[in-house]
């Protein structure tokens, strides 16, 4: 048996794939930011960035927004996790739906729905106006912080909840029996131990906020932000300046990778091991405390799920052009989609199923190679898989478009769409697929091989079935994110390749909210079906890791 074949060969193939489709375009962006208009080395891009006030202002705003939203998400997420872990509240089961709400409601749709509620012509705004009360301006900082907090706090919530559930209650009892007041014990014993998990998820929130495109472009009319500026520099109808596009993209890459670096350094220093955790008994609350705490938690839950309802209602609301007539209902928007836009739904299904299919096959193979067949190529593979995490969707779109629209390798728009959707999700797909690979004993596989079954057949007959739950989770999560993908595809797509999110984005741009809502409902439906199927029928655990 050749030692290189098949696993060494497959490792090299995976490596080459990542080098061409991830490393090459990203390095291209970094490289082009140092190339001036005349084609020679120049620092003009960075000089412009540092001297023209608007770029620095956008960078500052982006960082400030990231910090504020990380803080608000942490407060909200930890509060809710604490309530769920410690108190016996009436609707604890609904809380478990929360992570799903983030999955099935694309960012674009939550921004859109909150505009319909709080925008200057929104439901609540009009209510306040009718009552003669002033309402804060939603476009700008208030809207950005509000919508992003409600979209991203779930990340902190999940991390904090897992940490709190793993917390050994006897530590807290020990603290109290030594004479420390309960509240002080929380601060000195409980919080430090859940801090690493909370901070790690907080940093994820930070990277999501600074890379965010959908919410930013909908709400940041008066607040210049880096991601929106990067997008506009690329999409400008009068032809942008490639050096400046690359410079903006490079700044964003540096920002995110800097944060990821800090996170790794911080987490490597702090690691608490819980010994035989005894879980905390859940307290039943009474009186005004119960009302206050369960009311607060209930409000967060209602607000998290509200966008889906608003969009559903909007999709059935009568509109004349951009003007909506709330309270009057129609099926017109769905009829129009049926008459004119089935191709858009087809595009979404086509691109997302290709990206999911390819992405899951790739993730399965790579996770097997990385966990079970480590070789000299594995460390490089590990690093290449981290690369997609350092770039926002917009930057990935620009990298792919610049890298493959001309030059040595030219790819068609459709292929680029699939690539963009697939690459963005790859690191997570590999993590999902390898989740139970660590628990599969090598001896099972060795037994099969020693009985004469060739390694590849052993992989398909023995290992793959054992990996199936992880693969199914990877498939569902990849599907969910690819169907909702906007920021990379909106940079790449060509005429005739519009997906549902792109169509929604375009309709929102021309202020046709009711029609956008109908597309939004269809988008959520397409996302929800496999999730529902996976959880209910196939019993896939989506949030095990």
């Amino acid at each position, binding site marked *: 048996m050749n030692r290189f074949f098949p696993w060494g060969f497959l490792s090299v193939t995976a490596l080459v794939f990542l080098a061409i489709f991830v490393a090459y375009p990203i390095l291209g962006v970094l490289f082009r930011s140092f190339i001036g208009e005349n084609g020679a080395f120049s620092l003009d891009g960075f000089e412009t960035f540092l001297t023209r006030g608007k770029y620095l202002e956008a960078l500052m705003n982006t960082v400030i927004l990231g910090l504020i939203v990380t803080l608000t998400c942490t407060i909200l997420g930890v509060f809710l996790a604490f309530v769920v872990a410690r108190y016996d509240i009436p609707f604890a089961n609904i809380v478990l739906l929360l992570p799903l709400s983030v999955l099935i409601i694309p960012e674009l749709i939550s921004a859109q729905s909150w505009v319909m509620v709080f925008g200057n012509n929104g439901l609540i705004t009009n209510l306040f106006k009718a009552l003669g009360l002033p309402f804060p301006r939603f476009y700008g900082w208030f809207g950005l912080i509000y919508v992003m907090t409600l979209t991203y706090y779930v990340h902190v919530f999940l991390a904090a909840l897992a940490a709190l559930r793993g917390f050994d209650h006897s530590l807290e009892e020990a603290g109290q029996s030594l004479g420390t007041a309960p509240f002080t014990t929380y601060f000195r014993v409980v919080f430090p131990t859940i801090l690493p998990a909370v901070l790690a998820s907080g940093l994820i929130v930070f990277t999501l906020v600074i890379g965010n495109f959908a919410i930013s472009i909908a709400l940041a009319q008066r607040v210049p932000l880096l991601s929106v500026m990067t997008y506009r520099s690329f999409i400008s109808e009068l032809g942008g300046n490639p050096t400046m596009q690359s410079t903006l993209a490079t700044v964003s890459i540096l920002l995110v990778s800097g944060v990821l670096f800090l996170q790794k350094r911080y987490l490597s220093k702090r690691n608490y091991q819980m010994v035989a955790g005894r879980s905390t008994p859940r307290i039943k609350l009474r009186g005004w405390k119960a009302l206050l705490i369960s009311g607060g938690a209930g409000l967060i839950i209602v607000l998290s799920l509200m966008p889906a309802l608003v969009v559903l209602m909007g999709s059935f609301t009568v509109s004349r052009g951009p003007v909506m007539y709330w309270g009057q209902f129609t099926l017109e928007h769905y009829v129009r989609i049926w008459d004119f836009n089935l191709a858009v739904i087809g595009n979404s299904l086509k691109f997302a199923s290709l990206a999911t299919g390819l992405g899951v096959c790739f993730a399965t193979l790579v996770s097997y190679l990385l966990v079970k067949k480590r070789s000299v190529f594995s460390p490089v593979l590990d690093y290449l898989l981290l690369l997609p995490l350092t770039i926002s969707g917009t930057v990935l779109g620009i990298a792919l478009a610049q890298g493959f629209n001309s030059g040595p390798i030219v790819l068609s728009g459709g292929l680029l769409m699939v690539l963009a959707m697939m690459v963005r999700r790859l690191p997570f797909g590999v993590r999902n697929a390898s989740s139970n690979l660590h628990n599969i004993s090598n001896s099972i596989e060795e037994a099969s091989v020693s009985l004469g079954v060739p390694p590849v057949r052993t992989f398909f007959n023995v290992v793959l079935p054992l990996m199936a739950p992880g693969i199914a989770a990877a498939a569902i999560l990849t599907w969910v994110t690819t169907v909702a993908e906007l920021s990379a595809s909106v940079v790449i797509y060509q005429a005739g390749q519009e997906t549902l999110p792109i169509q929604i984005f375009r309709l929102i*741009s021309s*202020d046709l909210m009711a029609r956008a809502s109908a597309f939004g409902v269809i988008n959520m439906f397409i996302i929800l079906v496999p999730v529902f199927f996976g959880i209910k029928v196939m019993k896939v655990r989506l949030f095990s890791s």
Partner: protein
Amino acid sequence: MRYLGYASTFTLLTIIGAATNATAGEVNLYTSNSEDAVALVLDAVAEQAPDIKINVIGGGSGSLLRRIEAEQSAPVADLFWSSGFSTLAGFSNLFTAYESPEADSLLPALQTESAPWTGTNTHVTVIMVNSDVLDGEAPQTWEALMDKRWAGQVTMADPANSSSSYAQLYGIYQLYGEEGVRNLADIVELQGSTSGVYKAVAQGEYPLGMTMEYAAQRYIHGGQDDISMIYPTDGTFLSPEGMALIKNGPNSEEAKQVYDLLLSQNLQEQLFDLTFRRPSRADLDDAIANSGLPLMEDINIIEVDETEAGEQRDYLLELWADARG
């Protein structure tokens, strides 16, 4: 395992299903117009040229034109409908001229004898007003709009990003020179895109916005009472839009029939009623009057030399960036 099998079969099917081709008797129409506008055209073709089948590829005009450019060696598109003249000028090598018999009925400014496209409609720059958030009387002229009292209350799209916004800037420059450009720079706040302007005004973010007539009319016709528009009496600007035949398109004979149809009185009237984009034909005054919009002859229009505007672009944007500080 089984669902992986299903997934790969589905994947294969979608790849096979992706390829399509146009044959004779068909026209490949690349259009940036909305689906309901396209539907009107499809209906008109079905009625008046039933042997022609139209394949519609829709999208933003920038992305469509870039696609036509990419397909240049083996053109797929027959007809492009429609984009601003200044945008079309950047792609003029993709088009071939066609002298439609309908062209004589068009407004002189939209006939474009020297260029390989024909005007289909024209935008008129207006001041869109939201009375709900307006303090005092709305300005009736550009000069009054540029008064310091409106500082921070007027919005327009970034002229560096948007061709229609550049046309507005050039118009102001033509009327009031460098000082006008500086005055404008002092009072406006910029939006990233053209649509940002009318949305911001409709949502009450700004009381005043420099935008296109049709965009404001959508809200007025939709029934939003606090929206109105002003045609500045010191003169406003047109930004005409046109369509063009694609050079070496596969079905150019059929495409010419659609071309003529798009300039016909009946279809232009229907399109105007739907989109509020002022038709290029000179004989639709009744329809315009019925819609509540003023007739062209009642608006003070400043002639703009498009070539001159293009040549001045770098200079003017530099001046603008300088004035914005």
